[in-house]
């Protein structure tokens, strides 16, 4: 009988100690408390035991947790108001201070809101907008139209740039956060935007600049088209007049040569030429069917009046 009781007691003891067993997963870390007082922390995954009923277990995330801030209106150094939306990543490195200061993740997010917001404001208000937008000092063609819409915003090459700004915010926030057992891994700018009123002005300016450009393109096109038309006319006249000139030249030379040939031939006997030409003219000049009045003295009628051979 005693043996049965002993076995039963053993089973109960095992059972009870089993309730003190707990597993810590790779994404967890935990602390063991005894009546609210810290006993030990568990950082590595595995199987562990605590005193059942007397000791409590509090689990925490071992993973990297993300924090996303609400977009905030902040004024930059040159008095430009912008929306800045940041996010950060953090994790719990010292569990007890974490538990004691913020209790849990929700509490931590709330504290981070304040801390990171404050350091963001601090850094942003000390810098010009361009520092939060650009990342390198590579030269860009800047649009003056935009600058004038933004009222005195500075468009010089940045000295810090986005990455360094993010680094500064991180530095400032990190110190505050260490007390909470938190390690802040990074703070990054998720979004930077103009506020409504400024956005509208920037759009207006962009539109105006584009309309101007459109008008300029059109008039440039027209001017060039006119120019080409003028060229065309000029070329036409040039071709025509040169052709005329050449033609005249050629004809003139030919006429001169012909004249010379005639003159050379006919001057050998001008009288003969006279006769031949006159006869030709008479033949071809008097058209068929004309009426002609002849004098009886005409040499044609010589034989009519006098027999030949005298």
């Amino acid at each position, binding site marked *: 009988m005693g043996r049965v009781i002993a076995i039963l007691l053993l089973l109960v003891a095992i059972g009870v100690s089993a309730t003190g067993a707990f597993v810590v997963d790779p994404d967890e870390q935990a602390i063991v408390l005894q009546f609210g007082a810290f006993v030990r922390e568990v950082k590595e995954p595995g199987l562990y035991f605590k005193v059942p009923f007397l000791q409590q277990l509090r689990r925490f995330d071992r993973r990297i947790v993300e924090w996303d801030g609400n977009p905030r209106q902040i004024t930059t150094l040159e008095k430009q108001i912008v929306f800045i939306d940041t996010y950060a990543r953090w994790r719990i490195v010292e569990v007890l201070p974490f538990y004691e200061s913020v209790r849990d993740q929700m509490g931590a997010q709330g504290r981070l809101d304040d801390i990171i917001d404050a350091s963001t404001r601090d850094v942003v208000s000390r810098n010009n907008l361009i520092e939060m937008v650009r990342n390198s000092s590579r030269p860009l063609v800047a649009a003056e139209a935009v600058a004038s819409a933004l009222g005195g915003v500075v468009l010089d090459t940045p000295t810090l740039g986005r990455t360094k700004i993010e680094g500064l915010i991180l530095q400032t926030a990190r110190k505050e956060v260490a007390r909470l057992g938190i390690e802040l891994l990074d703070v990054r700018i998720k979004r930077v935007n103009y506020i409504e009123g400024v956005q509208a002005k920037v759009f207006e300016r962009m539109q105006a600049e584009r309309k101007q450009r459109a008008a300029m393109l059109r008039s440039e096109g027209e001017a060039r088209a006119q120019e080409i038309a003028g060229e065309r006319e000029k070329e036409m006249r040039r071709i025509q007049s040169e052709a005329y000139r050449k033609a005249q030249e050629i004809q003139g030379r030919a006429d001169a040569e012909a004249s010379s040939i005639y003159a050379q031939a006919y001057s050998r006997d001008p009288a003969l030429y006279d006769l031949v030409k006159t006869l030709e003219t008479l033949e071809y000049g008097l058209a068929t*069917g004309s009426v002609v009045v002849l004098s009886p003295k005409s040499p044609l009628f010589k034989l009519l009046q006098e027999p030949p051979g005298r």
Partner: protein
Amino acid sequence: MAAVPLIALLVVGGLLVGTSLYSIDSAEVGVVLRFGRVVRQEPPGLHLKAPLGIEEVRVVAVQHVYKEEFGFRTKQADVRTTYDEGDYLEESLMLTGDLNMVKVEWSVQYRIKDPVAYLFQARNVVGNIRYGSESVMRKVVGDASFDEVITKGDELAVAVHQELQTLVDDYKLGIEIQLLKMQHVVPPPKVLEAFNEVNEAQQESEKLVNQALQSYNEVVPAEKGRAEALVKTSEGYAIERVNRARGDADRFLSLLAEYQKAPEVTRSRLYLESMARLLPQLEKKYIVDERGATLLPIGSFGGGPAAAPER
């Protein structure tokens, strides 16, 4: 009551089998934890693990390509994909390096390459990817001018892809960015019309110039052709003129040679031959004395009464 131990055995057996047999689908990996510690990864198939919660399996889809969209949402992917009507401007409107504004829509495709890291490094992997993507895209766009962003979208995408992968590796998320694709890179909606106007103006301008050039290219060569023709015609005239002259001159010189042999005879002959050709052509011939008293019609030679002229 032998049935009771049998039933108990069956129940225990069932429990044991139920908590130790498991299967992994293709394209998945099973990460096995024993008492909270990662001990092995199992490929697809049927496997055994220690029962009753001693070992635990977490399944991760490693081949699956996940997609995150920014500035737009696909409603239904199909042969013709449809998109959500909303504008998601908070995600897509951003500042450029010259402080203009631009609208960028893009998507990120990734897959899990390290299941253990994916499971246990970060609490919200998708959140990390989304925040990281927006942050990197805006950083890259913010360092380029508006014109650069609009015209060199593809180069930008490459830069963003690289930087995002670096970020994701720094964060040890255990994922691999497979594709970063720019869906649209356009001027903000409110100024889009003005931008299109510039394109239209450019086209109109080019059209005007092309028309002018075309006119030039039609008219000028034609005119050149005409000019050529004119010159050729006058060349023809010239040749004809000179040849005629030569011909006439030669004829005269031949005649001259003959004439010089017998001048008087040649003269008379020429005269009479001419008249013989000429007079028949004439309709009416009147022979009138120079004192011009009477007009006596003779008629043609060889016909009609002849009248003796008054003396």
